[in-house]
């Protein structure tokens, strides 16, 4: 018990005030008038020089949004959001038309450098000849799309991707340059009549990434988007659309941070994935929005709709997420397993500390024949946080041979936190095989005692156990993310995770 108490104290002492990305960049920005109305929607659309069909689509979504009330079923509590008190559009003020990455406001570049996202270096590398004798490009190159408040500020490696036929650009550009693709797929996975926050996003989204991988192409590098909220009182509403055409493969990473602020900021994103026959999409997230301070003040409200559609036969969508940030997380990355023999995966680590509230999980809809899905969710609750796993697995009448295996484990550190599990398992035919298991416990005293008795410090022992607990999911992350994620986890749980 002594060991446990020490761990609790250490976690409490260090807590969430350790947030490393809480700085603010002082740059001028261009904002839409505060509040939300049809005019705001028109303003955003005009700012982006969008075609009229896009504006119509947004307005329709806005009208849909007006008819709905905020959902209250999730196990999270927060004061009412004043939707008229938010800026729906904020962009770094353009000094002039940018010709190359060198002309980006150096303040922004510095921000990304501080965050460890080397936009400039990568951009310079792009023009540099490969070292003689070496491979033309190191395997571990990553193309980055950096989104600052409401707009994308830089996308790297565009040229090399173009060579492979991959389209990777801010969605606002894609609407102008590839309207046929956007029109064909936008809103087909998360329609404008979807949930409250998705409707809001459809009306006011300002930017995000667009990826199209042509048939048979294996995307030559990891694609990545880095989201940063900087401006005060703004909401960030990004929209990501990824299409993997027949037989293609793409791996996409997403990272997020925000400055430390006393007020709560809203982040309502929508991510749509479409996988056609034999295609595979791997989507990884490291979410590290500002979680609020140790008294629960401030932090990001992260209300995100992520959904993947396995539209083709033998297609596969895999979600991996490491959730350490946000005051409130409300997020259920889902897979619609429509194509026969398609498969979906969901690997999640959700860590909550301080006053964070997490209500996250996944939905697996088995519609096609012989579809399979796998869910591994690891929740760690510390401090006074609430950590809920909420998941749905369903198979309809025609989903013969559907298989699912779910494991969701929760670890409690301290006696002021709560860990909940709310799975829904719905089977509608006799050939399904659904298995679900869940456990909730604390770090075993016996294990700690054993480790300490073998000469490890208390801290090392806890770290070992926590790392073992989440290893299964960490292994699913692409390498560069795994390192970052591991660092993040140790920050969020410093004291117990070493």
């Amino acid at each position, binding site marked *: 018990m002594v060991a446990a108490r020490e761990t609790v104290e250490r976690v409490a002492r260090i807590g969430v005030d350790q947030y490393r990305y809480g700085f603010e960049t002082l740059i001028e920005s261009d904002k839409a008038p505060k509040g939300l109305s049809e005019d705001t929607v028109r303003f955003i659309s005009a700012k982006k020089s969008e075609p009229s069909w896009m504006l119509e689509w947004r307005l329709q979504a806005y009208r849909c949004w007006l008819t709905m009330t905020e959902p209250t079923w999730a196990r999270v509590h927060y004061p009412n959001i004043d939707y008229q008190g938010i800026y729906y559009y904020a962009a770094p003020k353009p000094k002039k038309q940018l010709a190359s990455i060198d002309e980006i406001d150096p303040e922004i570049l510095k921000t990304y450098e501080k965050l460890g996202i080397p936009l400039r270096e990568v951009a310079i590398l792009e023009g540099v000849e490969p070292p003689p004798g070496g491979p033309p490009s190191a395997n571990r190159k990553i193309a980055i799309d950096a989104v600052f408040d409401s707009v994308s500020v830089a996308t790297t490696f565009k040229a090399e991707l173009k060579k492979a036929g991959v389209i990777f650009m801010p969605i606002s550009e894609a609407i102008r340059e590839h309207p046929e693709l956007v029109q064909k797929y936008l809103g087909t996975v998360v329609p404008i009549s979807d949930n409250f926050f998705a409707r809001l996003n459809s009306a006011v989204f300002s930017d995000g990434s667009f990826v199209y991988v042509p048939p048979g192409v294996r995307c030559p590098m990891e694609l990545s988007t880095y989201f940063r909220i900087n401006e005060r009182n703004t909401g960030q509403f990004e929209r990501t659309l990824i299409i993997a055409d027949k037989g293609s493969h793409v791996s996409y990473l997403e990272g997020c941070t925000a400055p430390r602020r006393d007020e709560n900021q809203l982040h309502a994103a929508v991510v749509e994935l479409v996988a056609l026959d034999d295609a595979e999409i791997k989507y990884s997230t490291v979410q590290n929005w500002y979680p609020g301070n140790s008294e629960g003040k401030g932090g990001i409200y992260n209300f995100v709709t992520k959904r993947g559609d396995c539209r083709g036969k033998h297609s596969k969508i895999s979600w991996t997420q490491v959730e350490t940030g946000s005051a409130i997380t409300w997020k259920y990355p889902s897979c619609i397993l429509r194509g026969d023999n398609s498969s979906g995966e969901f690997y999640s680590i959700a860590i909550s500390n301080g006053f964070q509230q997490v209500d996250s999980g996944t939905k697996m809809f088995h519609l096609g024949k012989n579809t399979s899905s796998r869910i591994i969710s690891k929740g760690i609750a510390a401090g006074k946080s609430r950590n809920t796993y909420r998941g749905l697995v369903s198979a309809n009448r025609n989903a013969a041979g559907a298989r699912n295996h779910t494991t969701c484990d929760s670890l409690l550190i301290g006696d002021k*936190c709560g860990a909940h*599990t709310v799975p829904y*398992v719905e*089977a509608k*035919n006799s*050939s*399904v095989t*659904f*298995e679900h298991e*869940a456990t909730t416990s604390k770090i075993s005293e016996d294990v700690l005692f054993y480790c300490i008795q073998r000469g490890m410090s208390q801290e090392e022992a806890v770290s070992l156990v926590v790392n073992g607990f989440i290893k299964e999911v960490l292994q699913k992350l692409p390498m560069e993310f795994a390192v970052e994620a591991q660092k993040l986890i140790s920050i969020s749980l410093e004291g117990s995770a070493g």
Partner: protein
Amino acid sequence: MDLVLAKAMPEDKANAERAVGNVFAAAHGRLPGAGRIADIRARAFEAYERVGLPHRRVEEWKYTDLRVLMRDVLPLAQQPDAPALRRAQAAVEQSAFEPAIKLVLVDGMFASDLSDVARLGKGVDVGTLREVLETSTSDAMAGLVLSTTADAMISLNTAMATDGVVMTIAEGRVLRRPLHVIHVATASSASHFTRSYLHLGDGAHATVVESFVSAETACGYQANNVTIALVGDQASLSHLRVKADAADAVNISSEIIAVGAKAKLNLFNMIHSGAVSRYQGFVTLAGKGAELAVNGVNLLRETQHADTTLVVDHAAPNCVSRQNFRAVVDGAGRSVFQGRIIARPEAQKTDGKLTMRALLLSDQAEADNKPELEIFADDVNCGHGATSGGLDESLLFYFGSRGLSENDAQALLIQAFLGEAIEGVANENLRDFATAQTERWLKARR
């Protein structure tokens, strides 16, 4: 009194609910209890009216939408007359078993002639809800018996309960004979509401069986019953519930149980008949070191709908709970299990396990499982598991290769599957009783 009722029915409510309002108003003269009790009823009815029949948007009733399955509440059944009691007797004789003491409720009214009140031993007191509510001196008792929760169907029961069995077992008393409460329906297209109460004194031991049956001609009725039970410190209660209602009946049973320190509660719940059945239990492990074992079986065919919902609230440290549910679903049946384990902050050293398994025998069958954990204490060991699937083809093939017919092989596998839950019944006689019910179901399946 009419004034109270007028207040209870705002003008702008939907037609269906107005019908219920009429049911309550019409039943008014027949509901026992006046003064404070009438107030409790009126308030409970108001609470019911605020939500009406639970529907799929009410989280706890997500899978059992009574607005679709039940539509509205039927008028209260008439007081059973002599022919009705005779028909009830036949049904009672079929379901009674020795050496249990019968306590019979016919269409929501206690039938003393069909019951064995005379055979009750020392320290066991059995009365009726009607007596409790009509005796002005037992106000506190009435309040306890009519205690309610936020659930709409329990509120409706509080408002409409006509009668019930009130059982009090004295401290330290060990009952050799089980108490067998038999609910018989004889009236068709009517509803009945009963509210029973069981108090098991400290250190007492008892077995209580509740059966739900129908007289031959009864059909299309709605039964709504609530049992409130208090299990004293170090007491031990075995509680069985078998629902064998008419094929087109609706049966909503609720149970609110508080378990004292070091007490043991063994629950078994079986649903194998009726069109729509729901059992909802709210068990609070209130005393340190209480132990709970729950086993449940849903056996469904055709378009039957059965729902077992159990909330186990660990409110004290060192309590143990084990929940084990099994469903066998044939035809276009639908089985629902919702189980929740709550460990409150003070409930350290909680040990909770929850297993729900569904066996689907047809492609029209449906099984919805929702096992929940809600944990606020850190030194706990809680877990749940859920599986759904069909019969194992390789096992069927093995039996086939040994010369068993497909039907026999299936029956064997189903029995083995259910056996895991039935074995949890503490009393041997009752275990046999439950096994016999499953065998009857399997035989009818062929």
